[in-house]
């Protein structure tokens, strides 16, 4: 048994790329991050609910595509209606594009009409690296049991053009509707697209 555990540990270490990235089909890494009011929000608080996690940088043209058109807000509202928790996370480092203080983030939410359950600040990039968030947007879904069931792009049209939203398959909304129907998520991973997450250099 001990030998087996050693083997497992060794494999677990190999399996962890740079930061112990989230793996679809495995428990979603737990995290805590401050919301725009400085209050700590923990993923564990939402056990029993489906959770969408969205990586955000308001200045990224690919993010603007989805907020300027109202596409992201619409998805957030649809999710909220179904009791789905939506966590938007900003992993931009201080001084980098998209970084915001809590006050700035509050103003941004009001101005854009975004309606996530919480907007979380991750200036150290700890949560972003735990999830291996590569782009903004980069989308994840955690099911009610706490398992990561989707990781990837918001949709299948990897351009910054708002005109491409129409006719695109929104992988997140498709997954949520499959989950709601009690089905397995048919597209569990896709290639994320957008701007690189502006992590700190150090």
């Amino acid at each position: 048994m001990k030998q087996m555990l050693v083997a497992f540990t060794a494999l677990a270490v190999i399996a962890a790329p740079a930061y112990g990235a989230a793996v679809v089909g495995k428990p979603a890494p737990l995290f805590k991050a401050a919301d725009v009011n400085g209050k700590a929000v923990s993923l564990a608080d939402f056990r029993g609910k489906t959770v969408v996690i969205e990586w955000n940088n308001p200045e990224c043209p690919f993010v603007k595509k989805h907020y300027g058109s109202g596409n992201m807000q619409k998805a957030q509202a649809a999710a909220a209606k179904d009791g789905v928790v939506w966590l938007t996370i900003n992993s931009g480092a201080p001084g980098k594009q998209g970084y915001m203080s809590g006050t700035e983030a509050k103003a941004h939410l009001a101005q854009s009409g975004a309606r996530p359950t919480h907007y979380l600040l991750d200036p150290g990039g700890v949560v972003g690296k735990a999830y291996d968030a590569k782009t903004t947007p980069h989308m994840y879904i955690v099911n009610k049991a706490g398992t990561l069931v989707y990781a990837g792009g918001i949709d299948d049209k990897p351009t910054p053009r708002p005109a491409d939203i129409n006719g695109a398959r929104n992988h997140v909304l498709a997954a949520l509707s499959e989950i709601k129907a009690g089905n397995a998520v048919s597209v569990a991973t896709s290639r994320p697209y957008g701007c690189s997450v502006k992590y700190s250099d150090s």
Partner: protein
Amino acid sequence: MKKVLVGLAALAAIGAVGGFYTMNYFEDPDIQLVDLVVGRPAPAFTLPDANGKPVHLADFKGKTVVLEWNNPGCPFVKKQYDSGAMQKAQAAAAGQGVVWLTVNSSAPGKQGDMDAEEAREFLADKGARPAAYLLDPQGQVGRTYGARTTPHMFVINRAGSLVYAGAIDDTEGSDKQGVPVRNHVLAALSELKAGQPVSVATSRPFGCSVKYDA
């Protein structure tokens, strides 16, 4: 235990290569199948076509290849052929110079098993236009590719790497009223044609189980 370790090793492989996705298969304890990793070379094979002529995957190096697992008796396959969706996809692929190989891995006496003549009749009857219809009654190629369902679709790029494995489209368990159907194979082909990476490299295959020999 061995199976668990294999699974973990597969996960380790994903972690190591990043960006490569394994297929998210459901369990089928009766059949030993190898889970291929998308992003890796597609295994070579040779199978007889509906005219008895051997077809080698290796002959198509330099071309994009689609593999379609087929069982004409399966309702999920019938839906694709009776609506004309599969023939349309085959025609679109052919128009782009893509080689489409339909493979039948039904064992003798099982649903969908056909000899060469029956296969030719099926093609004529449905107006199906794969580049070749391949007979795999022993299920060797099906097992090598981990083909679980009919249909189960694979796309191999010009370099011979597997770049898609999964369902034909995203209509599993839904009527999709008013929502456009995404044909994952056609979407992958159009991304490949544009020189882009395949954005949905795996999806959950759905359909009838492949009728392998027990």
